[in-house]
């Protein structure tokens, strides 16, 4: 099994998101006006876009959602940790950018004559030294990531995995050895005069590419350290140390090592020697480049993921500031097809309205099977809160499945495989110059959804099929809703198609809700009285 890619958002790499999925996700976000709500919550465009990008593909695995919630909880506990991590990851990206620009500067400015092998070696050395320098630079930040997570006690879950990866790449014995190698290269290679080049001959007398194992160089002059004044204590310590040494038994003389057979390679000239050394340096460079790139890529990929949590944190902080009660829902398996939320408020209204007290919460409940409802029809007068109700449910399910809390008293939700929305298009939004009429375009949109819909999906429809004769629209919709229910999907349908009520008759598979007509209970939604 391949190792899991380092991520604090996904259990498994979600791969490339296809254009269809991306477009469908965007449509849901726009229909539910989540983008608008987050324009207020998260003014930073880059962070908001990264957040909305994650919303395109909500999680469908409960374990994955729980892990996200765990990360978000850590961020809520110590918000400064998130900022620190973002800063460190940005620094790693900065190292990468500087590394790239330095390398391109190096390649563009140097003039190497390929015939002059000594200049080829010189250029190869320069490249390797540059890489070694940036390995050390990146290592500092990776090290700090590990320290930061340690300091804030993030040792479990996905953050724990980041900590482990950072440890492995900056503090493990292997990392230290690579760091020491990089340091040695940076300090010594520019003045190297002797190169140890290793390779292997296979049975067929073919050799691996040469690899630089070691090199020797002339140490630059170092000023001898001044002898410190001896104090009484230090002279006492020195004496004790001398005595201790003299007390140790002398080591037995070791047998002299048998010299390894060495032979001079005949028939080679200085060009050949320079070229061999250059090849070895270039090959080692390839390995260290691979290492540095892998380290940078591992952590730079976290940037957008951290932005998601940054926006999520701002969302929670917004609720905290406005004293809105919120909770993480309890998740159930997709097959239960359950939504049970008490006192759910609309996120957009909560973020935009002057007072959160003016936002009227509503309950939502349905579950399919066992004679219970699999969908909800919402009817009522204009401007009585039908669309807000639909939006609040959609937003709650989507955000919950992305690992965010939702503004309600309590919530139990089955994870949905997919979420679809169709909101009646305004005249201007229709495809220009299309030969099809409005109704046909609606039908086409519904047909696309029906093609893509999977069991345990959630469909949110707002005033669909009202672009034709109402009776015909209702008739058409009735069969579609029955189909949706039959394949095990839940739906909420806001409509003025009252004939649907007749068509359903006493059928209890659909709950018909109605917005309140009374000014005292405005925007409250309840069961339709017979």
């Amino acid at each position, binding site marked *: 099994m391949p*190792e899991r890619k380092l991520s604090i958002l996904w259990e498994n790499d979600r791969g490339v998101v296809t254009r269809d999925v991306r477009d469908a996700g965007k449509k849901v976000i726009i229909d539910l006006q989540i983008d608008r709500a987050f324009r207020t919550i998260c003014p930073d465009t880059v962070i908001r876009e990264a957040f909305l990008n994650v919303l395109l593909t909500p999680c469908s695995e409960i374990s994955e959602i729980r892990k996200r919630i765990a990360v978000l909880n850590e961020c809520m506990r110590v918000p400064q940790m998130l900022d620190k991590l973002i800063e460190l990851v940005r620094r790693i990206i900065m190292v990468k950018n500087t590394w790239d620009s330095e390398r391109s500067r190096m390649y563009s400015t140097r003039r190497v004559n390929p015939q002059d092998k000594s200049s080829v070696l010189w250029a190869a050395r320069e490249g390797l030294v540059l890489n070694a320098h940036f390995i050390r630079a990146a290592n500092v930040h990776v090290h700090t990531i590990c320290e930061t997570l340690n300091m804030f006690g993030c040792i479990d879950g996905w953050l724990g995995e980041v900590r482990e*990866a950072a440890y*492995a*790449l900056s503090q*493990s014995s*292997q*990392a230290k*050895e*690579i760091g020491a190698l990089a340091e040695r290269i940076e300090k010594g290679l520019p003045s190297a*005069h*002797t*190169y*140890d*080049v*290793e*390779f*292997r*001959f*296979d*049975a*067929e*007398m*073919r*050799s*691996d*590419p*040469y*690899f*630089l*194992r*070691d090199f020797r160089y002339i140490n630059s002059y170092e000023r001898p350290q001044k002898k410190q004044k001896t104090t009484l204590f230090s002279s006492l310590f020195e004496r004790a140390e001398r005595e201790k040494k003299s007390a140790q038994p002398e080591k037995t003389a070791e047998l002299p090592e048998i010299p*390894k*057979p*060495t*032979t*001079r*390679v*005949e*028939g*080679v*000239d*200085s060009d*050949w*020697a*320079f070229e*061999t*050394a250059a090849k070895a340096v270039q*090959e*080692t460079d*390839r*390995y260290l*480049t*691979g*290492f540095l*790139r*892998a*380290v940078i890529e*591992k952590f730079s990929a976290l940037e957008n993921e951290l932005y998601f949590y940054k926006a999520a944190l701002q969302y929670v902080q917004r609720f905290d500031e406005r004293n809105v009660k919120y909770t993480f829902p309890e998740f159930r398996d997709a097959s239960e097809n359950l939504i049970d939320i008490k006192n759910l408020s609309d996120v957009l209204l909560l973020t935009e309205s002057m007072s959160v007290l003016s936002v009227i919460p509503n309950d939502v409940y349905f579950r399919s099977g066992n004679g219970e409802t699999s969908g909800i029809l919402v009817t009522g007068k204009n401007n009585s809160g039908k669309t807000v109700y639909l939006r609040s449910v959609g937003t709650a399910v989507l955000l919950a499945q992305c690992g965010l809390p939702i503004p309600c008293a309590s919530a139990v939700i089955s994870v949905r495989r997919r979420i679809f929305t169709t909101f009646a298009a305004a005249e201007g939004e229709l495809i220009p110059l299309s030969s099809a009429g409005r109704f046909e375009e609606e039908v086409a949109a519904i047909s696309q959804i029906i093609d893509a819909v999977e069991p345990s999906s959630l469909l949110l429809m707002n005033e669909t099929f009202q672009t034709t004769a109402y009776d015909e629209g209702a008739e058409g919709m009735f069969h579609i809703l029955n189909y949706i229910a039959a394949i095990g999907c839940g739906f909420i349908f806001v409509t003025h198609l009252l004939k649907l009520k007749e068509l359903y008759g006493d059928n209890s598979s659909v709950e018909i809700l109605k917005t309140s007509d009374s000014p005292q209970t405005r925007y409250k939604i309840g069961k339709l009285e017979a």
Partner: protein
Amino acid sequence: MSYPSFLWKKTLRECADTEEKIPENVLADLMLAGDMKNDTMNYFRKPCSAEEIPQRQGLFRILLSDDGFREKLKNIAEQLSELHRITGAFERSEHPTEQVMLFLPSLGHYLTLARMFAELKEYEGRAGEVGRYFAELCEEETFRKAEEDCGQMMKNRRSELLYTVRGNEVTASEGGEMLRDKLERFFGEMGIPEAIPNRKALLRSNDSTAAAYAGVYYGFHAATEQFYHKYVGIFLEGERDFRLTSSYSGEIGFLLDASDYFIRLREAGFPLTYPAVSSNREVVLNGIVDASLAKRELRGEDVVPNDLLMASEYREEKLAFYIVTGANGGGKTTFIRACGLAVLFFLAGCPVTAVSARIWPFEAIYTHFPANESFENSGRFVNEANRAEEIIEKTNENTFVLFNETYSGTDEQKSEHYSRRLADTMYERGVFGMFVTHIHSLTGSRIPTLAAVIDETDENRRTYKIKRVGATTSSFAEDILEKYRLDRNSLKKRLEGERHAGT
């Protein structure tokens, strides 16, 4: 005895002289090109003798039914290619030190290969014969000793080398643990295996590097020299020179590639049969279908099968050479191609796409199909006539020949004259074959005629069957029109339909 061949009842050495009796254009005319590798196709140009055909058929029977055998042959093919790669390096090497060292792995590969061949001894036919030859070889004391020595030498072999480069002085010494390996191990342990770059191509050694290696590992080199002198005379000279086994690559390649082709045909629903070698001059094909139709992704079941009876004498009639005529698109070319392929496959010891068959082992096949429109210095007719003339010269009663619309590049009178001459010559010589032509005056003579006629038994579809007929006067143009619903009746109906819709 030298290495026995898989394909012929000869040794590999003798096989090198096997003549390609079937011209190259035959494979192209029968549309075999592209189905198999070029090297494989060449084997179809070397027909088997009457004795060899059943042996080769035996091989294909095992290949098409026993996956284990195929697997063994594939492994042998891989081992052969390894052996030849390294033997090539050995032969190309101009440096004695390197040659001596390359001999060791070459022989190692050969000894392994011999063991692999020996595993085939249980099989019947040629495969078993080759297997038993190698099994005997493996039992010999020299062979066993060579295996033992080779294993020991390979075990002692060290591969790491370290150059110390200082100015223009380069010294070589033993390698020890490699930093590259260490880094690769580290990257894996640190969870970044993607940091390991792709391995670059290996470099060939030269005089200096080979000498340096020999100098550092002088003990090992001295041992390889001894090994070389001990075994070179046994395995690199005379009948058992292991370089001779290179011919097996081609033979096994042919068997694997051709059997792949026939497996594909079988999976596409084409019937396969192993024709009997007839002792009389005859070609009897029942339910023959054109294997080249598989190219068009047709299923075998959807292809109309045909029958063919050719005999130098059948009920006091000479049925060796046929005139084939009939509707355009009625399947004449497909039919003669199917028959041609059947004879070609049969001569190569392969299965044939028919229900059952019996064929005389011909010496050669010739075909004359319309050529591409590229005639240098001469017109189409001259080109056709020249090609036909060459074929006519080579034919005899042991050859199978197919002419497809020959002499069509001239006026009717001239065409008829030449065609008649051709048909008569073939008939009189007793050559086996067919001549597709539109010249109806050729039909109805003493030369038997086959025609593409509508298959009355198939009620659902308009299909054609090739049948023996007397004289014919039409090319069944009406049938074609009907097929595309452009005939009188269809057009009438179509008109009525449109009127009906209009009202």
